[in-house]
């Protein structure tokens, strides 16, 4: 069966080359049939790679261990849905999955635009297929998931064999979240290819107006939103599965996913300046190129072995191919950009230093510096090794010291930007817009100090959150109140209608609000407490105003694991508030036993009680070893993520059109928002 998949990949490789050649030749000799053929070939590649991924899924589901990849990443006891997620559990399968998602995006783009942007689309198809060609080459020549298990003597294959069972999937990956998290990340990464393809096509065809921006804005926003969701799901999984009490470790692979997201955030903001003012054209193309490069670079980091990461696959020659591809793509893109600079002149002048467009520039600068610092910190161990020969580690203390102040500054700009007018903000408007948020921020700062908060970064983050949160809530409140007064709608209805009539603006505010909530959640990290303790049945342990009491231990058994767990009562100020069941499991695999923790978390809006059971503390098994954490405000990270995602979805929706009667009402609302009518000037 695997031969079907391998043949589909080989055929996809040929068809991909044909698609590129046909598209480019078609546009060169102005032959519509050839262009259409290139487009159809791109859809055919999607069908072929889908066949390959379907074949791999079939091999996993039927436990066909004649294939090395299947045997290495699953076993017979694995639940069906984990067998499916095993497809992206290793190097070869995850590459095929990446390539498959790219073909889905490609097929959607060429079908959606089959009657639009006729001069641009052949180049778009070529760029998308060019990226696809690289991945198909990897599947075919370097990292095929359809290799058979072969017995070797030296480098010579002496026969094929089929093991009785597979080695199993890493127990940490046997989590429902891991069924969703990697595909979301990959969808986000791959989505960055679409705006890149349109930007390159715009450069080639010299159509450097707003067309490519308007066509790709939704694609970019969707990819950005999905990538952000993927990152947060990864944090959620880490927090609920790994048992170290946190959700972000600044691991190189985590950083690799953050970098294109930061660049994408910068692009989504600066693109508004191009749409409105016809400015930052060069800058937007630079951002799109960088987002694309960072997306591929992230995949390179995971696979090259160039950095030490718990997520990374074993060191393999695949990294060299990725590096070569990145260098070629970047050189080609920047060469085109430089060549087309004369076509990328600004249509209008930049406004004053204190204006909305300037705030977008500052926002972009901060996001880029944030991305640079993450990239620099991630590569620093390798750079140190290469330059000084000294092996160093760059982990949390470095990233927290460097990136937290930058992030707080970014939060400040998040609040300031929407309060500034385009072109030039007058002193009066600054006073009018800033007074209330600033007052609330100052009051928050004072209250926090009175409450004993002395951690500067956390204090700053909370004060800034108050500032930004107030400015956003005011925007909704002012708009909805005016609408409510003008139309007679109830306040909640007015909020919904206001949002749905300008989805991009209010979706953006919602996303900003999500960002504020994320900061509130992050600031809680400055106030965590944790402790390790050993306890037998009836023993208690106190941390802050919480007490845990061990009520018992019991054995547990699942389909592919055995384990034990503790029954622990949680008391707050002497009152029992929950039963917690932290445990540990031992998974049997071909490579021996693998132990994992099953975390018990009691979540609340104020703090989480996070309890890890580490197993027996003594040989007699009378006492268990525990690690307990009090993690304030963590739940706001997840709430913030949901609000951020909701804001993105709203911003992606088209504006709701109003009926003529409604329009008249809306006009009266606008009039009420503006205050009493201004007298006509005497002519």
């Amino acid at each position, binding site marked *: 069966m695997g031969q079907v998949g391998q043949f589909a990949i080989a055929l996809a490789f040929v068809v991909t080359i044909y698609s590129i050649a046909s598209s480019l030749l078609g546009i060169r000799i102005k032959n519509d049939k050839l262009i259409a053929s290139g487009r159809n070939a791109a859809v055919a590649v999607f069908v072929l790679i889908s066949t390959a991924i379907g074949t791999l899924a079939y091999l996993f589901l039927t436990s066909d261990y004649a294939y090395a990849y299947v045997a290495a990443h699953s076993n017979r006891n694995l639940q069906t849905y984990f067998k499916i997620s095993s497809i992206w559990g290793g190097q070869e399968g995850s590459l095929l999955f990446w390539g498959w998602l790219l073909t889905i995006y490609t097929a959607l783009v060429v079908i959606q635009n089959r009657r639009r942007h006729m001069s641009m689309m052949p180049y778009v198809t070529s760029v998308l297929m060019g990226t696809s060609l690289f991945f198909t080459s990897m599947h075919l020549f370097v990292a095929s998931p359809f290799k058979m298990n072969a017995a070797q003597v030296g480098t010579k294959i002496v026969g094929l064999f089929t093991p009785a069972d597979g080695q199993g999937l890493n127990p940490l990956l046997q989590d429902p979240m891991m069924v969703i998290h990697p595909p979301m990340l990959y969808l986000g990464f791959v989505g960055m290819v679409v705006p890149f393809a349109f930007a390159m096509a715009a450069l080639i065809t010299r159509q450097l107006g707003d067309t490519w921006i308007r066509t790709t804005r939704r694609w970019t926003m969707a990819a950005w939103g999905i990538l952000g969701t993927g990152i947060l799901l990864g944090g959620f999984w880490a927090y609920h599965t790994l048992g170290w009490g*946190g959700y972000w470790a600044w691991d190189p692979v985590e950083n690799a996913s953050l970098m294109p997201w930061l660049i994408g955030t910068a692009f989504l903001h600066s693109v508004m300046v191009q749409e409105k003012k016809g400015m930052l054209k060069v800058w937007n193309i630079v951002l799109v190129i960088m987002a694309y490069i960072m997306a591929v670079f992230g995949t390179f980091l995971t696979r090259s072995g160039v950095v030490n990461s718990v997520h990374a696959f074993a060191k393999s020659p695949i990294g060299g191919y990725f590096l070569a591809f990145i260098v070629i793509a970047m050189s080609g893109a920047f060469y085109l950009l430089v060549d087309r600079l004369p076509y990328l002149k600004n249509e209008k002048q930049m406004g004053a230093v204190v204006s909305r467009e*300037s705030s977008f*520039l500052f926002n972009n600068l901060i996001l880029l510096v944030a991305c640079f610092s993450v990239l620099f910190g991630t590569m620093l161990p390798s750079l140190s090794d290469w330059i000084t020969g000294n092996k160093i580690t760059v982990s*949390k203390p470095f990233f927290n010291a460097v990136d937290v102040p930058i992030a707080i500054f970014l939060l400040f700009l998040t609040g300031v930007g929407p309060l500034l007018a385009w072109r030039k903000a007058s002193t009066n408007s600054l006073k009018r817009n800033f007074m209330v948020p600033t007052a609330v921020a100052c009051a928050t700062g004072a209250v926090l100090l009175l409450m004993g908060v002395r951690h500067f970064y956390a204090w700053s983050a909370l004060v800034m959150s108050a500032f930004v949160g107030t400015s956003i809530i005011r925007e909704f409140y002012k708009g909805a109140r005016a609408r409510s007064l003008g139309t007679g709608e109830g306040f*909640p209805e007015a909020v919904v209608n206001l949002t749905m009539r300008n989805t991009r603006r209010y979706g953006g505010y919602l996303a900003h609000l999500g960002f504020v909530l994320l900061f509130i959640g992050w600031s809680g990290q400055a106030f965590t407490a944790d402790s390790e303790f050993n306890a037998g049945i009836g023993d208690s342990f106190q941390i802050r105003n919480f007490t845990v009491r061990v009520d018992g231990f019991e054995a547990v058994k699942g389909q592919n694991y055995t384990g034990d767990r503790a029954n622990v009562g949680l008391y707050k100020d002497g009152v029992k508030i929950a039963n917690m069941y932290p445990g540990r499991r031992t998974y049997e695999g071909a490579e021996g036993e693998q*132990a994992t923790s099953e975390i018990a978390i009691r979540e609340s809006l*104020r703090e989480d009680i996070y309890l890890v059971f*580490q197993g027996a503390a003594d040989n007699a098994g009378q006492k268990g070893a525990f690690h307990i954490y009090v993690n304030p405000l963590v739940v706001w990270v997840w709430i913030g993520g949901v609000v951020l995602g909701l804001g993105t979805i709203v911003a992606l929706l*088209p504006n709701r059109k109003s009926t003529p009667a409604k329009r008249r009402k809306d006009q009266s609302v606008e009039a009420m928002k503006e205050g009493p009518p201004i007298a006509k000037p005497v002519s």
Partner: protein
Amino acid sequence: MRNLFRKDNLRLFFLVGVLLLTPALGAADTDRTKTLGSNLMCICGCGQVLTECNHIHCPSSVPMTAELKDHLAAGMTDKQVLSAFVEKYGSKVLAAPAFSGVFNKTAWLLPFAALLAGLAGLVYYLRRIKSTTAQPAPSTLETSRYDRKIEDELNNFTPED
């Protein structure tokens, strides 16, 4: 429902929110073991700082934490403790490079230097643009009201698809 959003109520909601959240933030942990442990790496290969290694019965983090506690019990300063760990395990045991030597100092300062250079460059660019733009005519009371209206409209304008 409208009454719910009156100014007084909003102030009350805000105050209650702050009061609800802040007690949770009151007591920062100042344990030296935790502070120093979070500046050291576990060497088991988990890639996590010493205080966060989640390996059950980890062969590295358990003895390293004991070692750290021994050093503190012996009255060593933070600097002495970190030096002792570097001497034993190499500079990789530090979770971030020490602020010493040209390379490490450059590494620490480069992101901030990039930020400052970017900010300076941006302010210079915007001022230069401003100085080349024609000054607007002085505004009367009437025109400033128009200015305000236009500004508000521009402020509320978002390009649609």
